[in-house]
């Protein structure tokens, strides 16, 4: 242990601890901007400067390791003056439109400007006036707001190995740019949106589409139907000031009705359906030794990644659409018919933890119903805004349950929201289908956890199945390299583009650390544990769906509505039918 003094207080911390963490441990909060708990130290913003006795210059707390008898002062006038001027320098070329900014009220720079009582700026305002990037339907960039902390670059290159961002220019003309092109759409960007979580300011955000929802709601001809994705409920609580998982489904549903949704259904239902289709596909392909390993296709960021970086291995992907798109295809066919509603009137909105879903819904092939299957994707954050817009008082909101036919689900559908969940759900069903025996213990602990790559061997009464689970596209890359080299020993691989799976998706409440992801995972598993039915094939409405409409998994009807194909990208998303120009208007 190393002993040091910070602001006159003694503290003992393990060797190698930074001054920043040592200070944190005794409740001294040093401000930061480029620092991120899950990332490497950058020390480039210089906001965390402190005085260290014996040093003529100020030291960045994030990058200074402690040493014995070190004396640190974090709040001297000298320090405060320096931090404030650094803030003023940043603010002097930062657009002064906080009131219009998507991060208003949730911005690290704004917070610091308030703490350091920045009232005026001695420096002349000079905004760089760079072009905003609306090239993708998933996220947008406003380079003027960028403070060059480089957190987006690190998450994209280190966590995701996508390398869509890089630095260009030098000195005051340094900017973060999508690499190999001027626009994100032309880069290798997979639209996972992890950079949104990394960004301390409003330089990167989702394409906000609340207005489209408002238009639909105000049109009396429209019937606005929504599906809620598995990872949304636990996290949306954070948007309304509650603890993770503390918003019950019936309050959530009720809140959505208050916002104007006519029918509230659930993506968990089609998650159960995915298990039926994908589970059958897996069993069929394993027994035919056909294009193994089978790889999941639920995560649109992962699909973009595979199409971009592994176009030669697209055959390995399950042909199943994601639960969102299965839902979209069914709601305007099966559900419309069952409800006696003209599908042309249905405005299908999905509530997703994801920004890549906005792109997935816009794919030209996603119109099996004869319409665009999913008309609008709102992220968890956008729904949070909708709730605030409606000034909902959650302490007094009446309970309301999900609507029928595509609203009920099992615990297996719920765990789709976490990394490993699809695998576990598939195993619950596949085991029973393959062995004909009842599965007593449904919790496959081997596939749970936060390890980037996890693997398990499942014994299905003599047939051994090797499965692997990867989350983050870095893990995906590792697993896919094995497949490409013929070294992959797995029958089945589950890949989620975002760390932790959908609970850590790019559309979730701004996520600052792995700790936050772990809490959401716990909340999801709790919901599964409390579910009466925990195996997808036990879902009675799934049985009805097959009886009345699809006939059987992998039937002709299933293929028509629930399965899809993939397109090699060669690093660009300019596919026919999707026009970036259409996305150019102000976000």
């Amino acid at each position, binding site marked *: 242990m190393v002993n040091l003094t910070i602001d006159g207080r003694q503290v003992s911390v393990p060797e190698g601890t930074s001054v920043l963490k040592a200070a944190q441990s005794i409740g001294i909060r040093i401000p930061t901007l480029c620092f991120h708990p899950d990332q490497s130290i950058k020390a*480039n913003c*210089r906001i965390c400067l402190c005085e260290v006795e014996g040093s003529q210059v100020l030291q960045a707390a994030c990058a200074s390791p402690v040493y014995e008898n070190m004396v640190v002062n974090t709040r001297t006038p000298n320090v405060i003056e320096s931090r404030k001027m650094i803030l003023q320098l940043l603010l*002097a070329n930062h657009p002064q439109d906080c009131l219009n900014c998507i991060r208003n009220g949730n911005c690290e720079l704004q917070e610091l400007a308030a703490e350091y009582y920045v009232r005026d700026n001695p420096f002349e305002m000079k905004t760089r006036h760079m072009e905003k990037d609306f090239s993708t339907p998933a996220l947008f960039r406003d380079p003027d707001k960028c403070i060059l902390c480089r957190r987006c670059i690190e998450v994209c290159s280190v966590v995701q190995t996508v390398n869509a961002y890089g*630095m260009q220019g030098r000195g005051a*003309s340094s900017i973060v740019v999508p690499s190999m092109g001027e626009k994100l759409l032309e880069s290798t960007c997979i639209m996972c949106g992890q950079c949104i979580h990394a960004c301390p300011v409003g330089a990167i955000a989702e394409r906000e589409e609340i207005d489209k929802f408002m238009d639909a709601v105000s049109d009396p001809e429209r019937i606005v139907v929504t599906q809620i994705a598995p990872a949304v409920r636990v996290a949306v609580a954070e948007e309304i000031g509650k603890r993770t998982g503390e918003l019950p489904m019936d309050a959530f549903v009720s809140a959505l009705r208050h916002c104007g949704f006519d029918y509230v259904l659930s993506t968990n239902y089609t998650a159960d359906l995915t298990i039926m289709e994908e589970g059958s596909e897996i069993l069929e392909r394993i027994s035919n030794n056909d294009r193994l390993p089978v790889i999941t296709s639920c995560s649109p960021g992962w699909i973009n990644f595979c199409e971009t970086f592994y176009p030669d291995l697209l055959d390995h992907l399950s042909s199943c659409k994601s639960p969102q798109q299965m839902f979209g295809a069914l709601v305007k066919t099966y559900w419309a018919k069952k409800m006696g509603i003209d599908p042309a009137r249905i405005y299908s909105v999905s509530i997703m933890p994801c920004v890549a879903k906005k792109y997935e819904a816009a794919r030209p092939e996603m119109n099996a119903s004869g319409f665009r299957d999913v008309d609008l994707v709102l992220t968890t954050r956008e729904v949070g805004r909708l709730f605030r817009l409606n000034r909902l008082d959650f302490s007094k909101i009446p309970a309301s349950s999900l609507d029928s036919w595509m609203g009920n689900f099992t615990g297996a559908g719920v765990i789709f929201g976490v990394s490993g969940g699809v695998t576990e759900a598939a195993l619950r069903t596949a085991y029973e289908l393959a062995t004909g025996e009842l599965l007593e213990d449904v919790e496959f602990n081997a596939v749970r956890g936060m390890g980037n790559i996890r693997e398990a061997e499942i014994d299905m009464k003599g047939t051994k199945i090797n499965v692997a689970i990867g989350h983050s596209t870095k893990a995906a890359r590792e697993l896919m390299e094995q497949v490409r080299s013929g070294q992959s020993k797995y029958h089945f691989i589950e890949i989620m583009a975002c760390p932790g799976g959908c609970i850590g998706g790019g559309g979730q409440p701004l996520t600052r650390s792995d700790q936050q992801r772990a809490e959401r995972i716990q909340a999801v598993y709790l919901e599964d544990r409390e579910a009466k039915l925990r195996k997808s094939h036990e879902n009675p409405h799934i049985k009805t769906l097959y009886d009345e409409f699809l006939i059987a998994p992998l039937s002709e009807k299933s293929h028509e509505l629930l399965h899809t194909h993939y397109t090699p990208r060669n690093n660009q998303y300019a596919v026919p039918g999707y026009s970036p120009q259409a996305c150019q208007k102000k976000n």
Partner: protein
Amino acid sequence: MPGEMRIVLRNQGQVDPFKIEDYMARGGYQALKKARAMKRNDLISEVRESKLRGRGGAGFNCGQKWFFAASAENTEKYVVCNADEGEPGTYKDRIIIQHDPHSLIEGMLICAYAINGSKGYIYLRGEYSYLGQVLNHAIAQASDHGLLDGFDLTVRRGAGAYVCGEETALIESLEGKRGEPRYKPPFPPVQGLWGKPTIVNNVETLANIPVIVEKGAQWFSAIGAPNYPGTKLFTLTGDVNRKTFFEVPSNTTIRDLVFKYGEGIPGGKRLKAVQIGGNSGAFIPENLLDTQVDFDSMNKAGLTLGSGAVLVMDETRDILDVITRIEAFFEHESCGKCTPCREGTPRLVGLLEKIRKGDGSHFDLDLMQKLGRIMSRSSLCGLGMAAPVPLLTAIQHFPNAFEAKVSKKTSEEGSPW
């Protein structure tokens, strides 16, 4: 030149840089032989006791630096020569390489032996492309003579960024990345190139090594100023009669640099200021001319020795004009990594231009000084820390040049409170 003392330039004009035989005929590579017969620890102690301090500008004890790298065991280690001589007005390293490349290579080989380094790089300033030929030729000759002893030595050219003279930016550049400094610690002797212990020494530092090994620490430490012994190479530019280079003991005064070796100012004009150490050096007024040029004496006087460039300005020079150009240089050369330097350098230039045009106020002058002070203590690397130094010292020593240009108004003018 009378009064000069040539250690680093011992062979200048005496050898053909393309002939290793010439170098060897003057005792070259004997020091290497001697060093390799010594125990590594003894060799490092010898260098440490010579009190040789880095000639690149930071003035760290060279032997001590080697000691840190030598302490690491069971790992690859690197020796890097910093020949990215980018300080405007400095060309001492060029002179050494151009005239006597083997003195540098011998110094590197001794260092490599001392720390048990396996690979070396000479990071050569991009504009010095023609010296690459000289160095590669010399390396090939040394190799032919069996002098490398398994040490792998490569010349790498910089791409023109001033900041790559900063040792960690240089390392990043060697690794093929953007030339941007790293935060420290860890320092390169502990974690440098590819994360391995790395010695980065300046050309002039390394050229001193063979002589120290040959003649001993005691001999060397008795030369010049006790805390910064040896000689220093200077390059003289500006309003001075002899624009040349010379090597003098480190206890020489600034006055002697200008008036003895430089033979004074042309046209009988008076001196206004001297700037030592290139663009990042302090502005020195007449009354500090008797300061000795050694590292510590300069520091004590609030000045810096830096690279050894000496820019002389006569009475007709406009301080504000010179300062604005210097700060524009830093704006151009800032790498953009840390906020104070990236955002601060253009602001300094903007304020200077405002004042130069006669639009500035006392408020601007104060702001400029405050910004300069803050940049000096909060930037990530030496570039941002040094960038305001010429400005701050110019305001300190030549306040009239600035005061005369600004109006009296302040930001809170008109308020009785």
